[in-house]
């Protein structure tokens, strides 16, 4: 039974959402085949996200999937959550470890102010209620990369609760409609990261590097409002953009700064929820969607065949495209939660409750943080639509591609051309070239200034639109020539000389008397043939509108 595969369309680095077969929760209008050859596929939104099985049985029971996510984001800070050792992605093993991180006796946790601010900022950006008092707890379990034998987390009373995350699913005939969806946020809590284990199966040992042990994490727990891989992937992408905009986390999944675990179950609508499994080892947005859809289909197939779902943990194997059980025989884990005895409650203030004589270093004012929140992605998109007259879907594309928004804004700054022209060139031509060669914006051979110069030439009618495309192709070759240089080298300037153009039109008309006859007999479209001939003769250096005007004048005389 084929698992529903999300086909990765376009060889660009960015994973785009193209549903292929009936396994998607957003039903397509054409049930068979993948009909679009653009980067985005087609789909339409169903009234309710539902799955049907591959082989409909008698009575075709519909299944609904329920997906909950637990997302861990590494806080972007200089030092760790409870100690003063450095936070850095790569460093010699165990060089970024303090005595506390190594859990040597006699060491105590000291809370990092920056991590608390990051948690409050994130909570506010996600519309959460910030708990003015939150508590720290110990979660006990044994593993070699957790030297203390427990993790300090916030189980009883986390720092933020009851928020929401809004994301947009592209749907409609040409993926041009953006449907807003919301997933509720149960809570956000501060907790410690563990160290890293490297398994050496050959020598039957595990090597432990504690550089990551004690780094601050934000755990964002989403309510199970999601129903398929596409929704989960989109929601996580939006969260990534928000965290990056806030600066609270770099949220790079490839570097392990953002980790997602999914809890998945299926049931018939109206009936109680099914047994859920947890899927781990999801280290890219693309695999996240793939794994969730695979697991949903696996559960459906299992239940349809009379089997049952075990409450277990499964790991996603990306080479095989499937989830496999982690063979857990221990049953439910008992973490023996207890209050962290070395940390008093964390108390936050707002403008009204702030004590007058407080040391500003020692208090955190929620209202002050709220005032200094940077612009969030959803607001940025709205602003782009208002300011530059682009479609909402365009703003999504601009934000989704790393570095593209900055590129776009730099071009706008340096060019006289209309914003709509810039949008079109950046999103169609520029992005198209990038995708074709699988390049990131940062690897582009064309700089914003160069594109701005090209658009200025187009805007001042120095070259035609077709010529501009030619110039762009030359610019992409990295030969270091400016657009101006390419235009003069290839003699692509629009013909200024009206007299010469009139001569050319005249000779064309004389050379093709049948076409002229055609026109005079009342076939207006024959003029296009003439225009085409003249254009070719000028090697695309004449403005087609001017050619048409001259020809019409000649014909009527």
């Amino acid at each position: 039974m084929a698992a529903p595969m999300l086909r990765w369309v376009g060889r660009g680095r960015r994973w785009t959402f193209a549903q292929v077969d009936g396994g998607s929760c957003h039903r397509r209008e054409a049930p068979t085949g993948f009909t679009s050859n653009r980067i985005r596929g087609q789909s339409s939104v169903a009234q309710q996200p539902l799955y049907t099985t591959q082989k409909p049985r008698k009575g075709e029971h519909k299944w609904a999937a329920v997906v909950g996510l637990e997302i861990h984001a590494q806080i972007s800070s200089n030092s760790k959550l409870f100690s003063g050792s450095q936070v850095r992605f790569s460093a010699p093993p165990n060089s970024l470890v303090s005595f506390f991180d190594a859990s040597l006796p006699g060491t105590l946790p000291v809370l990092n102010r920056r991590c608390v601010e990051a948690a409050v900022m994130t909570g506010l950006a996600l519309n959460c209620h910030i708990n003015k008092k939150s508590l720290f707890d110990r979660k006990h379990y044994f593993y070699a990369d957790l030297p203390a034998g427990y993790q300090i987390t916030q189980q009883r009373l986390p720092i933020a609760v009851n928020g929401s995350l809004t994301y947009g699913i592209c749907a409609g005939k040409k993926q041009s409609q953006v449907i807003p969806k919301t997933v509720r946020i149960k809570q956000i809590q501060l907790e410690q990261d563990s160290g890293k284990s490297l398994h050496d199966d050959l020598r039957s040992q595990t090597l432990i590097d504690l550089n990551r042990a004690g780094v601050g994490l934000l755990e964002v727990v989403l309510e199970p409002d999601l129903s398929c891989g596409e929704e989960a992937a989109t929601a996580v992408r939006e969260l990534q953009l928000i965290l990056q905009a806030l600066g609270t986390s770099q949220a790079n999944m490839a570097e392990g700064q953002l980790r997602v675990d999914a809890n998945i179950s299926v049931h018939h609508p109206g009936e109680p929820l099914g047994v859920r499994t947890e899927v781990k080892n999801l280290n890219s947005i693309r695999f996240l969607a793939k794994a969730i859809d695979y697991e949903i289909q696996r559960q459906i197939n299992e239940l349809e065949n009379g089997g049952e779902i075990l409450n277990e943990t499964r790991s996603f194997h990306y080479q095989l495209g499937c989830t496999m059980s982690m063979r857990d025989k221990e049953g439910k884990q008992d973490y023996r939660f207890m209050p962290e005895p070395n940390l008093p409650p964390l108390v936050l203030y707002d403008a009204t409750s702030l004590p007058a004589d407080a040391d500003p270093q020692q208090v955190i004012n929620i209202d002050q943080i709220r005032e200094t929140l940077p612009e969030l992605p959803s607001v940025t998109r709205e602003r782009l639509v208002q300011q530059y007259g682009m479609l909402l879907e365009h703003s999504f594309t601009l934000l989704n591609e790393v570095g593209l928004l900055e590129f776009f804004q730099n071009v706008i700054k340096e060019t006289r051309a209309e914003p709509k022209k810039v949008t079109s060139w950046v999103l169609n031509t520029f992005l198209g070239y990038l995708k074709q060669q699988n390049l990131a914006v940062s690897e582009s051979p064309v700089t914003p200034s160069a594109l701005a110069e090209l658009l200025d030439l187009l805007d001042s009618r120095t070259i035609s639109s077709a010529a501009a495309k030619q110039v762009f192709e030359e610019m992409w070759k990295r030969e270091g020539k400016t657009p101006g240089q390419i235009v003069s080298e290839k003699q692509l300037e629009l013909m200024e000389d009206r007299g010469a153009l009139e001569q050319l039109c005249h000779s064309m008309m004389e050379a093709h008397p049948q076409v002229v006859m055609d026109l005079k007999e009342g076939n207006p479209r024959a003029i296009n043939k003439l225009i085409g001939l003249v254009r070719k003769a000028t090697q695309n250096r004449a403005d087609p509108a001017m050619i048409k005007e001259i020809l019409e004048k000649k014909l009527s005389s």
Partner: protein
Amino acid sequence: MWSRLVWLGLRAPLGGRQGFTSKADPQGSGRITAQVIEHLERLALVDFGSREAVARLEKAIAFADRLRAVDTDGVEPMESVLEDRCLYLRSDNVVEGNCADELLQNSHRVVEEYFVAPPGNISLPKRDEQEPFPHS
């Protein structure tokens, strides 16, 4: 006493969060069952090697049970004895670390600046697989 050092393989949390009284002793029974001992040994990696140890545990529980004699209706429980203190907030500066050599000295085995641990997934043998221990 650690009679053997074993590692629980999986740290994957299954299911929801536990409350604080996870495996409460049946009230006032005073008797700890073999199942509870096994569960505690697995959780805490403590070896209740003898009958005396279990008896000590039972006495400790009985001692703590005396708290129930206090009427706490309508009284808000404390979070900890520190709850009235101020939680100190540290500035986000790097002031520690860079002592790999010192830390690695604590480890029995070291490979190229990594601590060496046994591979995961060695599970604690079941009670009936271990040497039998007198238990009424």
